[in-house]
């Protein structure tokens, strides 16, 4: 069964909040091998034959169950591309917790590219949580390039919470979604970059069916000399509603490029975008200083709150 060293356990706790073997279905991938796997009566986790990923099948009507598929990497120089496909049956309602933690103490780059595809049948409901975390003092970079494809059939819904707060040097995130009639997509992305990190996030969400809706909100903080790009495109192909918001705090010599885009191909498509980039307001710091916080403590509180 599970054999993890202390670093692997710490990464697992950072990305999935796990201290023990999770309940329900799970697969823990550690340094390119499965460190433990379990299916349940309703959720089947099947490894791909080439060893590069999983197929997860959730039976129709499955309720209140969870799937944990965290990845931890502790060997410097490891590079992998993993394909995980999720088939969610009609009216199922489940939570999927993914996430990747890289600890790189060596000189070589470590890279995990996770390609996730979600196929939700009619009325299915998924809450997806993905956390990225990097640590280690090596000169090798910690690189994560997640690719996500979401296919939402009639009246299905997916809520995605994506968090990357610390230690990942290079990220290129690509997310595409196709929504049928009445389907709903909610995305909450939180990102903080520091040092000379680079993070780009690209979304293309196509609202193809009547009553489809999408709400994409990204909150980010760019510190030091880091660079972020947020590129979100909503395409309205029917009577639908879409909202995208990019709200960023810029600090030091950070750079942020926000590229919200809307494309309406139907007269009844209602699409809205908002984007704001700015430094921490001086008054916010002063207010917290009048409560006895130092300038640095005030800054930390403001950022913690913003990314909460």
């Amino acid at each position, binding site marked *: 069964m599970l054999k993890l060293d202390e670093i692997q356990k710490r990464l697992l706790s950072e990305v999935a909040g796990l201290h023990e073997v999770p309940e329900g279905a799970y697969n823990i991938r550690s340094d390119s091998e499965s460190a433990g796997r379990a299916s349940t009566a309703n959720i089947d986790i099947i490894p791909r034959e080439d060893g590069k990923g999983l197929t997860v099948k959730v039976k129709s009507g499955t309720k209140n169950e969870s799937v944990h598929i965290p990845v931890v990497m502790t060997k410097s120089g490891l590079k992998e591309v993993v394909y995980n496909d999720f088939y969610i049956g009609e009216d199922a309602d489940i939570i999927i917790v993914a996430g990747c933690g890289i600890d790189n103490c060596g000189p070589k780059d470590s890279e995990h590219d996770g390609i996730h595809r979600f196929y939700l049948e009619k009325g299915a409901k998924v809450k997806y949580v993905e956390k990225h975390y990097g640590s280690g003092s090596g000169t090798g970079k910690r690189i994560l390039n997640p690719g996500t494809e979401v296919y939402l059939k009639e009246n299905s819904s997916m809520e995605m919470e994506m968090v990357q707060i610390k230690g990942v040097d290079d990220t290129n995130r690509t997310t595409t979604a196709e929504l049928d009639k009445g389907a709903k997509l909610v995305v909450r992305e939180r990102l903080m970059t520091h040092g000379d990190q680079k993070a780009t996030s690209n979304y293309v969400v196509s609202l193809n069916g009547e009553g489809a809706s999408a709400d994409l909100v990204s909150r980010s903080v760019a510190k030091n000399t880091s660079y972020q790009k947020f590129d979100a495109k909503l395409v309205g192909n029917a009577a639908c509603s879409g909202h995208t918001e990019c709200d960023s705090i810029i600090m030091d010599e950070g750079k942020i490029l926000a590229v919200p885009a809307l494309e309406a191909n139907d007269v009844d498509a209602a699409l809205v975008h908002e984007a704001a980039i700015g430094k921490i*307001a001086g008054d916010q710091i002063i*207010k917290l200083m*009048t409560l006895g*916080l130092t300038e640095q403590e005030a800054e930390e509180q*403001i950022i913690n*709150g*913003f*990314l909460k």
Partner: protein
Amino acid sequence: MLELKNVSFQVEEDGSNIEIIRDISLVIPDNKLVVITGPNGGGKSTLARLIAGIEKPTSGQILLDGEDITEMSITDRARKGIGFAFQQPVRFKGIQVLDLIRLATGKNNLSTAQACDYLSAVGLCAREYIDRELNSSLSGGELKRIEIATVLAKASRLSVFDEPEAGIDLWSFGNLIQVFEGMQKTINGSSILIISHQERILNIADDVIILKDGRLAAHGKRQEILPELLDSASATMPCRQNGVSKGDGQEC
């Protein structure tokens, strides 16, 4: 006790120096409620900001309980016991009312029930507000009351309020006055400094200070200052007499 000795403050504008505060010396004794009033642009808010450390005087000294705090940072002054309520409270995305009250008390483990007491004191239904974010979903009036609650929670030796009545038209003045009276009772030896135009707030002052053109135009007991002030004000600003603020409550 707070003491200002010959405090002046200048700013540079278009190459010339403008004096905002001119050679002010005064004492705010312990256990006193002091109201600073006077015409707009007279330097009231600047004086409050000088006391909180948000601005530093060009010359002169500020002493708290005999200690020179003139060069002290905002943080150090706050830790020494100075509280400050902004005229226009600040919004924070993501920070919740409970977070801010905890920061104000300096107690991370302050219970929700204890935090709610401060909100109730400013007339807010605590349960509805405690988890709210301090963002644009709150009205100016709600933010103002939360601002007052944070200063209440900080329980300072000297609490400075910059126009606390502005924007809280819907909340009765009686409650606001109760907040000040309660603070004096519960915080031992504390003094309160309020910048206000409102007659009802002037009516609860022990001492009244009038600032005009950056100078101390008058300073004394309320009973001595107020009659004279109201006589001169009634000619120009009738709204002061009935204690109602207009519009957004910024000024009569």
